[in-house]
């Protein structure tokens, strides 16, 4: 049991020890939580498939510093994201915002599902009709 607990503690402390981020955590745990969320939502522009939180490159650490400072200055999450988008474009957001330009893309899953349901219903109906006809035929025989 003790071994298991120790192993768990090692597992939990591991990532922290290996963390890329060298900025000391924010004094307020709620702020720190927002900091972690934001740095995971923002893309590292240099190594484009990593988040700010995961990237070791210089620009990512500079942008983490900016997020950190803006949180301390009392800015809202929205203000911080807007600040980043104004400089780097929406590409910096891992979750693109909805707009008229990409509305079709957002609605595509729903549209495709409706198309799928429509096709499914028609196929089932055809098949049932087919089966009904066949059974009628066999009754006739």
């Amino acid at each position, binding site marked *: 049991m003790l071994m298991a607990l120790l192993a768990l503690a090692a597992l939990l402390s591991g990532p922290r020890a290996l963390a890329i981020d060298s900025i000391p955590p924010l004094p307020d745990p709620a702020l720190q939580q927002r900091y972690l969320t934001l740095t995971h939502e923002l893309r590292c*522009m*240099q190594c484009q498939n990593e988040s700010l939180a995961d990237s070791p490159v*210089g*620009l990512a650490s*500079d*942008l983490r510093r*900016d997020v950190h400072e803006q949180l301390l200055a009392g800015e809202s999450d929205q203000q911080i994201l807007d600040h980043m*988008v*104004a*400089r*780097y*474009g929406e*590409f910096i957001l891992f979750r693109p915002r909805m707009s008229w330009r990409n509305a079709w893309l957002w609605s595509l899953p729903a549209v495709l599902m409706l198309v799928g349901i429509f096709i499914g219903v028609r196929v089932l109906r055809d098949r049932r009709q087919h089966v009904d006809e066949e059974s009628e035929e066999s009754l006739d025989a």
Partner: protein
Amino acid sequence: MKIASRFALPLAAFALLLVVLIAGLYHAPEKGVIVSPLLGKPAPQFSLPGLLDESSPLQAQTLRGHWSLLNVWGTWCVECRAEHQTLLQIKQQGRVPIFGIDWKDDDAKARAWLGELGNPYERIGADREGRVAIDWGVYGAPESFLISPSGTVVYKHVGALTPEIWQQEFLSRLL
């Protein structure tokens, strides 16, 4: 005949999808370059201490009243070395003054670099903490911005400038 019609629609849909995806592969309009949201907007306000002369800072106002090429570089940037020759040629041409932002660099190394390779810049600001580069949306040196006399960001190129790119993408935009 019935079988053919049954497969015709899915096949057509598949073929269409294939065409769209292949076209997308070869016809990416920006070829992986991120379009800057600054284009067409006023250049951000900034002020940087001069690298060569502390008393002549590089500021937003420095870029007013004439066309400017703003080049973001650093001695740690390998491609910047390749680009340097083109910058010297642009300076020699004398049509557009070049201003430099020395991004997250060591001042002494930067001065040595200019001493060795020549200095194409009218004025250089030292962005030691990388804050101004962020305001310009810089993500990888070298980056070059074309600024109009009224201070509007007209064009941005990411990567090393070549005489061809300078001719086609920058000079063609001068009014």
